[in-house]
């Protein structure tokens, strides 16, 4: 019962994912790329970096990278906290 219902939900969700995948614009031809063109053209003078990806990661979208570093920091704190010694409080 649970399995059948779950399978139904799963399949109906996947149909929409497939529909989205098929009806996207064709692979390899991005329609609007103003933002990325700007990055490619201006990265060398504004960020003075040859690697456009790095200049996007650390300059144009540097705030995302701060968030990424924070995520890693959070996860490390979480892992260390979850696996710490119990501190004598056993229940």
């Amino acid at each position, binding site marked *: 019962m649970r399995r059948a219902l779950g399978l139904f939900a799963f399949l109906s969700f996947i149909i929409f994912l497939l529909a989205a995948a098929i009806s996207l614009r064709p692979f390899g031809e991005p329609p609007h790329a103003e933002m990325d063109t700007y990055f490619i053209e201006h990265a060398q003078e504004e960020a003075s970096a040859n*690697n456009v*990806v790095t200049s996007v*990661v650390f300059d144009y979208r540097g705030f995302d990278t701060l968030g990424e570093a924070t995520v890693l920091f959070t996860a490390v704190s979480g892992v260390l906290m979850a696996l710490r010694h119990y501190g004598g409080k056993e229940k």
Partner: protein
Amino acid sequence: MNFENFFWILQILIAIALIGSSIAAIRFKNLIAAVIAMAVFSLALSVEFYVLQAPDVAIAEAGVGAGLTTAMYLLAIKNTTDEEVIE
């Protein structure tokens, strides 16, 4: 052989590898085997990024998937148990 055909053949091969390794990761009863399949999945994913001209992402996936994720999984399995639950 021009670049276009070459690219699509690569895409098909990588697609086979991706789907095959992920199905393997799901189907294997032994967790170590599943983790090895995940390493192959990561390798195929990295090759896909590489072929799609994203070397930054490919290096990230390689650095994480080749050593660290496998190490983490194995240490976690070592701390728990490696047999899948009998269904």
